[in-house]
């Protein structure tokens, strides 16, 4: 399947708004390429899935930031990002390979990888903080901030007498989450 640059732009736009069709297209276009790269370089099918999904997330972040200017073909970009991510992972596992075999044509993606790593660790901190929050705080926060449900709906669902009660509870939970998150943040910085 060949894509020209207008198609690619539309694809990225779709990606930015979490459009399922665009994700599917990207999957169909590039998954096999990335999988071949990983499998040929000491990886498993699971590794391939992880790396590919991370690559798409990098794309998604870039597309959402709005400042994304494709300087090369999207395919080259995807390949470069996957390759870098895989090398990083290999390095972490201390299985460093001096040169990853495959197509050599790549574009520099260091900036993207770095900011992606940063964001990734922030999200992981948030996930951890949520995990430590415990119930019912976690469900409450997730229902309001993640699933964006209305306060009255939540009050009914969680069995609070009225929305104000639920709201107070939610704020208390939020403050605890903040504390946990920033504690995690400081921990990681040190």
């Amino acid at each position, binding site marked *: 399947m060949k894509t020209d640059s207008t198609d690619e732009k539309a694809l990225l736009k779709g990606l930015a708004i*979490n459009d*399922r069709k665009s*994700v*599917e297209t990207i*999957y*169909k276009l590039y*998954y*096999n390429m990335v*999988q*071949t790269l990983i*499998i*040929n370089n*000491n*990886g*498993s*099918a699971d590794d*391939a*899935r992880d790396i590919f*999904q991370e690559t*798409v*997330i990098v794309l*998604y972040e870039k597309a*959402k930031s709005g400042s994304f200017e494709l300087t090369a073909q999207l395919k080259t970009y995807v390949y470069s990002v996957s390759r870098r991510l895989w090398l990083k992972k290999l390095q972490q596992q201390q299985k460093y390979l001096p040169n990853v075999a495959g197509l050599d044509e790549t574009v520099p993606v260091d900036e993207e990888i770095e900011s992606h790593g940063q*964001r990734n660790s*922030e*999200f992981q901190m*948030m*996930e951890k903080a949520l995990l430590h929050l415990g119930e019912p705080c976690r469900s409450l926060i997730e229902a309001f*901030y*993640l699933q*964006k449900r209305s306060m009255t709906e939540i009050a009914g669902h969680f069995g609070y007498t009225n929305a104000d009660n639920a*709201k*107070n509870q939610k*704020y*208390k939970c*939020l*403050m605890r989450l*903040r504390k946990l*998150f920033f504690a995690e943040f400081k921990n990681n910085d040190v």
Partner: protein
Amino acid sequence: MQDLQLLDAIERFLRGEMSPEEMASFEQLRKSNPEVDEKVVEHTMFLHQIDQFSEWKSFKGTLHDVHNQLLESGDITEEAPRASVIQLWRKYKRVMAVAASIAGITTLLIASMATYYTQKKTASDLQRLRGEYKSEITKKTNEVINKVQERITKAPENTPVRFGGTGFLIDGKGYIATDEHVVNGASSVVVQNSKGQEFRTRIIYTNKETDLAILKIEDDDFRSVGPLPYGIRKSGTDLGEPLFILGFPREEIVYNEGYMSAKTGYNGDTLSFQLGVSANPGNSGGPVFNKNGEVVGVITARQTQAVGVVFAVSSKNIFRSLEDVKKDTSFQNIRLTLYSSIKNLDRVQQIKKIEEGVFMVKCY
């Protein structure tokens, strides 16, 4: 709950749910109170973080769904990794070839060095203390033998004793340790205790390397002696430790005293040690005791050009031999005594107790 109210205000402010008047007073508050302003900024950032997190999560969810869906519809297939061994082989062929040749060369070198440095154990200046019963000697001790033969003899008929040594019980059920060279070449082995009773035995283990052999008494006349009075020492012995030996250099049990004189045996052999004691042919296979009545070794040989230089295999080799013996399931029940029960007795009493466990080994 001022904080809660503030949080609520901030969220309503961010969502644009405030009335114009409220908005104005909120702005006013922010301007006049830097603390509040800071909180607003901080919370805004935190909410933004949560927002992004939520988007990230839902995007991940989409990815996951799409992956599974496409996998099911067959648009993508998960390739199995190539057999990694083959891949490794391809990758490291050269390295492996080099490594293999280095390993090969090293092995050859070590093997040749080992052969070069290994001393021939049976050098001419070392005498095995196995008693050779030549016909003259048999004549000399005719009286004794005659007496012995009056009792029930277990020896094969019309065959003189060819050679012999000493052995000792390592398990009261009738397991005897002695030297390999004592029983080497024997067609049948009979042991005789200090009271003169004879028992038929079978050789169940020999090891030329450590020069140890283990015999099992297989005789209806033998009664288990129960727990042995002496123990067998698992660890080493110290230089200068007083030692004593019991053995059968003649038809009678003979006691002798000495000391540990070197930690290694003939030509630096680490399996054995040297002791200063006088020993004679027939002492081979005899136990070496320390002052606590623990077996620390088994006498093997003496040096011919020197007086009082005797070698013994360390007792820990008995434990090793036994591991081999126990591979045969019928010998699983052998138990070595570790602790001596005659520790604080005086020597005469110790010997009286030990005597029972020391046997003359006669080979036909």
